[in-house]
């Protein structure tokens, strides 16, 4: 029997049905990342497993016990399942060590001394021994999350559930928590991780659930999901992660657009040159050609997309100006035009993908 068996799990809210008939088995030792667009029931799925949400119907067997049965001793089952929340939820009135000792003492009946020793062991695992006597409010976000992980581990759970453990963190603190989780993955613990961090999904997990349409839409190894996604929706989702898209209208906020492109380039490790060229080309394109054309055709819009390949190589820019087809829009208009020259210097023009869709690359 698998460690977790989910049969026909169904969950309805008043005006949403995030889970429609989900069935899946999870084996001991698996590290599962759950990814998918927002609002597709990832958190709901996770919270059903330890019964923080009550499923509408279906069965969830955890370590041989059906948690959906009203007779089940829920606290007992929950002790086998650690949970790490997006917002840490440390107990603010207790020191770090007490946060970890308290549940052991009150729920497992462990003595103060043993609880303390266990706490220090777990704190060492996440590199937080030095902060044992601090209060949560004295810690950075990353440190808080690491303590939360230690607290869950101190109960010696068979399974640990993570619900977006890094999304409440400052960008500069994400890495330290990811390191802790990936270290943990190597210890053979069963883990379910809801995340938007593709680094985590790809590098740490042994299996990925892509959730959409009220269930587990695609289920496979990281390689399968990231390199060869089978279904269209999965492709779109994975693809967008490495793309920057922007719809330019006549009122477009240039400053914000350029800033978001810059942030994308930086995040994709594109290298300064590729990134600079790309940004300048887009700016030139928009101010030199697209906005003037849109001023004349105020109800139209143009879609821009920048795709970044692995390691910041294979950068490409796609300008989807199909809606301007027939308005005389063209970037070749005046051959000697400074803008055109500049763009062609920055990026390499490729044959149009289809009429009205321009295509550039940087190598």
């Amino acid at each position, binding site marked *: 029997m698998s460690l977790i068996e989910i049969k026909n799990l169904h969950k309805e809210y008043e005006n949403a049905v995030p889970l429609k008939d989900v069935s899946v088995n999870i084996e001991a030792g698996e590290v599962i990342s759950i990814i998918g667009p927002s609002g597709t029931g990832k958190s709901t799925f996770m919270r059903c497993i330890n019964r*923080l949400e009550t499923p509408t119907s279906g069965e969830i067997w955890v370590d041989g016990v059906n948690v959906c049965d009203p007779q089940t001793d829920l606290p007992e089952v*929950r002790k086998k399942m650690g949970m790490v929340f997006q*917002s840490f939820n440390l*107990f603010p009135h207790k020191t770090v060590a007490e946060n970890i000792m308290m*549940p052991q003492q009150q*729920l497992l009946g462990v003595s103060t001394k043993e609880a303390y020793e266990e706490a220090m062991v777990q704190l060492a695992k996440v590199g937080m021994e030095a902060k044992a006597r601090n209060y949560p409010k004295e810690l950075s976000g990353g440190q808080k999350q690491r303590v939360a992980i230690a607290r869950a581990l101190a109960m010696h759970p068979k399974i640990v559930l993570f619900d977006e453990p890094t999304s409440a963190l400052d960008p500069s603190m994400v890495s330290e928590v990811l390191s802790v989780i990936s270290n943990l993955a190597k210890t053979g613990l069963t883990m379910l991780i809801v995340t938007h961090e593709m680094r985590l999904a790809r590098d740490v997990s042994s299996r990925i659930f892509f959730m959409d349409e009220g269930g587990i839409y695609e289920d496979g190894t990281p390689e399968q999901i990231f390199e060869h996604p089978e279904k269209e929706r999965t492709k779109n989702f994975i693809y967008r992660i490495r793309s920057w898209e922007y719809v330019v209208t006549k009122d477009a906020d240039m400053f914000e657009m350029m800033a978001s492109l810059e942030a994308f380039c930086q995040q994709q490790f594109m290298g300064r040159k590729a990134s600079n060229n790309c940004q300048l080309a887009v700016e030139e394109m928009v101010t030199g050609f697209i906005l003037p054309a849109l001023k004349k055709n105020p109800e139209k819009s143009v879609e821009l997309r920048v795709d970044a390949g692995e390691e910041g190589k294979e950068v490409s820019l796609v300008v989807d100006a199909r809606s301007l087809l027939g308005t005389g829009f063209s970037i070749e208009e005046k051959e000697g035009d400074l803008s055109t020259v500049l763009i062609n210097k920055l990026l390499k023009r490729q044959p149009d993908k289809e009429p009205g869709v321009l295509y550039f690359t940087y190598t």
Partner: protein
Amino acid sequence: MKNKRRLMGLLMVILCTLLFVIPAYAKEAESDGSGEPEFASPDEMGGATVGLLTGMPFEDMISQRIPDIGGFAYFASMPDEVLALKARKIDAIFINNALIDFAAAHNPDLVKMDDHYLDSNFGFAFPKGDPQRDVWGAIIDRMKEDGTIDELWVKWMESDDPNKSVPEQDWPGNAGTVRVACADSFEPMSYYGENGEMMGFDVEILLNVAKELDLKVEFTPMEFGALMPTIQSGKADVAIGDIVITDERAEIVDFAPYAPAYFTMLIRNSGAETVEDKSFLQNFKDSFERTFITEDRYKMILQGLGMTALVALSSAAIGLALAYGLIFLRRANKPFTNRLISGYNALIAGIPAAVILMLLYYIVFASAKFSAVVVAIVGFALIYCSRAYGIIWNAVSAVDEGQREAALALGYTESLAFRKVILPQSESYYTPLLFSQFILLLKETSVAGYITVLDLTRAGDLIRSRTMEAFFPLISVAVIYFFLTFLMTRIARKIDVSFKDKYYNHKIKGVDE
């Protein structure tokens, strides 16, 4: 730096207080100078309001003398009248000279008008035709001649000796016993003293006479109105107590006159000569003595303070316990109890404390034989409970839902999570609020007087009616309340700090201690 600022703050408060004090005394102080009676003669009293004791039928007479009189106001006792006069609620008191002299002697800013009405005498009343009248009359005449009576008049009217007393009955009393009916509330003529013995000018004269006759005296104090009937019915041998001899009275009893009596007006004066020599400090000292020392009145204030503390503390304790009960009920989250709780809170919030107390006293506990104090405690407990519940519930609700979920996910049961995780977190928020709510409660108990609880405010009230002076009792009460709340606020701050120390001491419980 900080201490200096605190000191300055306190000084400021004292200064504010002096803003009240100075005018009150400055008025008396300045009155030593050039002031004059407000009305030189009755002719000037057009529009003035005259105070009378209830039942005294002088309206017609006064209206004839002062046709454009403003109106009459009726009072139950002389002290009330004097307070009203000083507070300018009325402009004159019409009453007999003994009471007027006494009031004027003890209130430098009041003065007797020169006009006399109904000139007559004070007299001891004897049954019609009683030969004793002549025996007593002779002795009294002798006392008039040798100045004893004048001496006594001064003693009782004007002296400020707080230990005024009448002679002990140390004579053998071989001639028997004389039964004396005496009015019980006509200071300085005949009134109950501090220890329940009869005091006053009339009483002392009577004792002097009785001594000469070697008679033991047996006093029966009563209302003034009962004096004549008692004599007529033979229940007493003599009646005394501020009795002015009038024709009507003389028809039904015989009198032995002992002092001249007449009626006149007591009016305000901004410059009574008699107090020219009284300094500001002296005034202050006298008021102080009258308010606190005389009759051990400070004990009343202390008792009132104790009552206030008792009511506030007990009701806070009971209310807090109830509030915790409600919190646990509310956690159960049953629609019915939830609505009951919010109904209760809406009721308490919507009705003034005074009305709540009366509802309890006259309706809810009407048939239970609880004392007013118990009812007050119950009432304020209900009020405090409602507010404490609101505060605690707010604090508990403000604790992030994530805390509950985290505890549940660790394996806590709902109730353990509440007791071990949620409540302790909110404690440091709600405790200071509960304390400041307690301070409000302390002040609010001042309405307990509505249901006859003798608390601090009411004690001040009573002293005020005894001393005929509002200033000192009121100020003392105010000052006590002020320092109580001041002290409580200090304690609240200490608690706040100690909470922080307790919670954020960077120690691991059970390991570092």
